[in-house]
């Protein structure tokens, strides 16, 4: 359902703060709950990166849309179509120089107007080079 384009390779020095931008795409007619759904029972989208030399400082989600669906009495906070999530990393002070890959996991739950899909996890690799 949700597809992703891997972020561009990150090149950085120790202690530097860098950004990685991951792009996502949903087919027309489908949505995923945003990272801040309006109802407690809805499963939020979350991006988490595995631990490594790139330390996550902040994950910046796009501004969600507030859409009306027949199954909810109030607008639902969603992402649709194409959207991007930006992650700010700080390179660890003791990071070993050289190339590497860190994997982010996007946990999400998608629906259409009349159907929901079981929660799923999408893995996105980020390649980096530390000088």
């Amino acid at each position, binding site marked *: *359902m*949700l597809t992703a384009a891997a972020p561009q390779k990150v090149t950085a020095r120790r202690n530097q703060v860098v950004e990685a931008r991951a792009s996502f795409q949903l*087919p027309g*007619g*489908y949505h995923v709950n945003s990272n801040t759904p309006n*109802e*407690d*029972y*809805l*499963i939020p989208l979350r991006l988490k990166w595995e631990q490594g030399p790139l330390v996550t400082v902040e994950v910046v989600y796009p501004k969600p849309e507030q859409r009306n*669906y*027949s*199954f*909810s009495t109030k607008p*639902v906070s969603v992402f649709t179509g194409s959207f991007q999530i930006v992650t700010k990393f700080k390179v660890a002070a003791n990071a070993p120089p050289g190339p590497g890959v860190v994997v982010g*996991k996007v*946990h*999400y*739950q*998608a*629906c*259409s*107007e*009349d*159907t*929901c*899909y*079981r*929660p*799923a*996890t*999408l*893995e996105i690799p980020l390649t980096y080079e530390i000088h």
Partner: protein
Amino acid sequence: MSYKTLGFFHSIKKTGWAVPAIAVLIGACSTPACRSSSRVKASGDRKPAPDFSLKDADGKTVQLSDYRGKVVLLNFWATWCGPCKIEIPWFIDFEREHKDQGFAVVGISMDEDGWQAVRPFISEAGINYRVLLGNDSISQLYGGVEALPTTFLIDRDGRIASVHEGLVSKGTYEHDLEQLFQGASGARASGVPVVVARAN
């Protein structure tokens, strides 16, 4: 009705690649109006509903074969599924109105957080039918259920008479059930044996 108290946090257990395939399968007919046009299969075209063994909220083991001789509405759902919540009040009505006619609704929750998420929901929604906790095995047994709601209508002989994937109208279910009540009663009167297929 508010379900705001039903907080819910999912652990990462699945990868997402089975979902697109399901989306493609239903893509040709993705609106409620389209899918509601499906009709009950002719008796000879029905396949046996796989038997299963799952726990209910009281910890009791329940098998589909326990319902032999009854028309069963088998509904796959989850607490996080908005469209499922539209159908649940209908199923409550069906259970109340038809339980004396040899009919039962059986809900299979696909909540990964288990009873912790499902029990409060059952109470708050006033669900009057049996709810079981599903898993990947039963999902696979029924063709890989990834889209919710998905509902199977099973005749008194334990065969799948119709399948509805996604939200359809209450009238569609009423129509299907009416056919099953009529058709199945004839089979019972004629002494046709009731057989429910067993899973391996």
